[in-house]
């Protein structure tokens, strides 16, 4: 029943109700963010497959090795959990910052300073029993990381230095400081290498019968606490409000810089804690292996975890499994770990692109439905 004179009536049949996009599977998938994430991971794996083919390997075989070695082997599970621990702990700290729009990308330096502080404090107390040394080392590391984060925070809050710059440049100061510390004041006189003494009694014991150190528990304890703080506490509310509209928060705060300062110091403290757990649980000494890149990978962990504690936990396990599998693939197939490390940021890029496209689809659908509804309610008034 077309309108031959073009009186402007809507072309759709006014009797039919507007299509219910809101209930469709596509809509629900888009709203939860799961669809974008899954498509992004698949797309990134596809890009990775192209690179693997170029490197002369069979991608299906490589992915099979990565999954098998990281998740279906006992040693793989162990390594995945152990590497996920620093990633998750740092990622939680970063997630609070990112959620509030405070970009701490200097966790690598904060981790380094945590490890240095820990070894400096527990070094002279080597005779104490582990039950005392471990908490002392952990607290020293958290203070060391927090101080490093607080320097960035001070520059950011007091001098309005961009947080990205204030945190990142401190990494390039922390690394030489580490090298000097293990070369001169903290050097183990028994070796020629620039490395500290071992942590001695502070070495983390393994959990009941397994060969996984107890530091892993720290992550499992921290995640629910962080989730509660983020979602139910006043602090978490302020963090989320600061991310949504910081001026609304500042309007009710007597000291507007306080929240970013706390977030950067807290991120530093958690990065420092991760530094101690790596030191006491895995590396035993501070040295060239201390700055292993966890601080940078944790940025991806926080972003892919959507800055939510449970998401961060899942992302930490996932990215850790990817890296553990990649190390196995490097050993058995000679495929560089750097390949997997480049796939991880590609996932992030696909996710942000996917979310932007998703926003467009949702908006367009909303407009279409609004237009149809308007036409439905006022068929004579439609243009």
């Amino acid at each position, binding site marked *: 029943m077309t309108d031959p004179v073009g009186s402007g009536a809507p072309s759709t049949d006014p009797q039919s109700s507007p299509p219910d996009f809101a209930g469709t599977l596509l809509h629900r998938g888009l709203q939860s963010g799961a669809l974008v994430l899954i498509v992004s991971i698949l797309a990134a794996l596809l890009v990775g497959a192209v690179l693997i083919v170029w490197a002369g390997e069979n991608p299906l075989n490589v992915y099979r090795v990565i999954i098998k070695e990281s998740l279906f082997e006992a040693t793989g599970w162990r390594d995945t959990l152990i590497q996920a621990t620093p990633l998750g702990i740092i990622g939680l700290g970063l997630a609070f910052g990112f959620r509030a729009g405070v970009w701490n990308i200097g966790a690598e330096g904060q981790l380094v300073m945590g490890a240095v502080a820990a070894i400096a404090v527990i070094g002279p107390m080597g005779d104490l029993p582990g039950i005392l040394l471990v908490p002392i080392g952990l607290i020293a590391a958290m203070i060391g990381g927090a101080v490093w984060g607080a320097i960035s925070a001070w520059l950011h809050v007091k001098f309005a230095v961009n947080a990205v710059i204030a945190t990142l440049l401190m990494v390039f100061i922390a690394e*030489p400081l580490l090298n000097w510390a293990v070369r001169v004041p903290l050097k183990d006189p028994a070796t020629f290498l620039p490395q500290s003494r071992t942590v001695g009694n502070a070495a983390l014991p393994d959990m009941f019968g397994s060969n996984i150190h107890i530091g892993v528990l720290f992550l499992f304890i921290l995640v629910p606490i962080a989730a509660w703080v983020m979602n139910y506490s006043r602090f978490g509310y302020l963090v989320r409000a600061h991310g949504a509209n910081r001026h609304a928060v500042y309007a009710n705060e007597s000291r507007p810089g306080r929240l970013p300062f706390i977030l950067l110091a807290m991120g530093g403290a958690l990065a420092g804690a991760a530094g101690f757990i790596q030191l006491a649980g895995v590396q035993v000494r501070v040295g060239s292996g201390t700055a292993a890149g966890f601080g940078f990978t944790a940025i991806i962990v926080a972003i892919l975890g959507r800055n939510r504690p449970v998401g961060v936990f899942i992302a930490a396990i996932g990215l850790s499994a990817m890296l553990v599998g990649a190390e196995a693939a490097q050993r058995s197939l000679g495929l560089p770990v750097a390949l997997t490390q480049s796939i991880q940021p590609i996932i992030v890029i696909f996710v942000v692109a996917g979310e932007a496209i998703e926003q467009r689809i949702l908006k367009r659908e909303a407009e279409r439905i609004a237009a149809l509804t308007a036409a439905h309610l006022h068929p004579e008034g439609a243009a």
Partner: protein
Amino acid sequence: MIIAQTDLVSVAFWATVLAAGVRLAISVGMAALGEMINERAGVLNLGLEGVMLIAGFAGFAASFETGSPWLGLLVGLIVGGIVGALFAWLVVVLRADQVVTGLALTLFGIAFTAFLNREIYGGGSTPPRAPKPGVWEIPVLKDIPLLGEGIFSQSSVAYLAILVTLLLVVYLRRSYWTIVLDAVGEEPRAADAAGHSVVAVRFVATVAGSALAGLAGALLIVGQLGFFNTGITAGRGFIAVALVIFGRWRPGGIALGALLFGALDALQFRFQTLDTSVPFEFFIALPFAVTLIAVAFGSKRAREPSALTLPFFRETE
């Protein structure tokens, strides 16, 4: 080379420091100039470090395979532009978050070039070396004490870089497009109302900025170092972002900041061999510490482009 402390008062010592400082300043200054262009259009590119690495590696490969540093620079420029177009498509056209996308680009650049370097050139501790461009000395001028060696005895590609920079600075000073660029970065709605496509201007500015950063990366790796290593730019992309703030989004200030960083970087190399009680690691950290302090002093008075990092939505959309 061990430097005695008496060298510190000699003119020759400071002349070489200055010469190296100018060389080191060129690449970081050029990257900062590129970042300035896209930031003035309202686009923050934290992927600068990644762009420098990817374009620098491409430039190195081109120069290594063909033996021509000039081709290496050209490839660096083009690859920088291509990566910039990809970034612009994400953040300008799709309006993805600039900070997240930029950081991801940097992390990708570090890992991806490490992967390529390992696959193609073995990635060992003694990387292959590409031919370095020749040095052009300008007679008479190079004999000016203190400054002569620094400015008038550079590698041939450095003169090109200086020329490009000067032309760009002069062009930006006098051009109609600079006004459009600033309008898009400060008041995109007004620029849009005046008939300029905000998306198009931001896209072009981002591509241009990345192309310059790519050239800067190639200049560092092809023109100065002659070899590639994982993460060889060592934070210079972020230093460039910092220099834009220090220079308050103006070429003159950026050039000054780049010279300061370059001089400290050059001093750092020389002081490492200096026979003092100060540990050499202190000098390695010094350029970063001074940049941070300089930015701290500049940031309060600096005012960034109003629309920086904000995506543009037309009211009709």
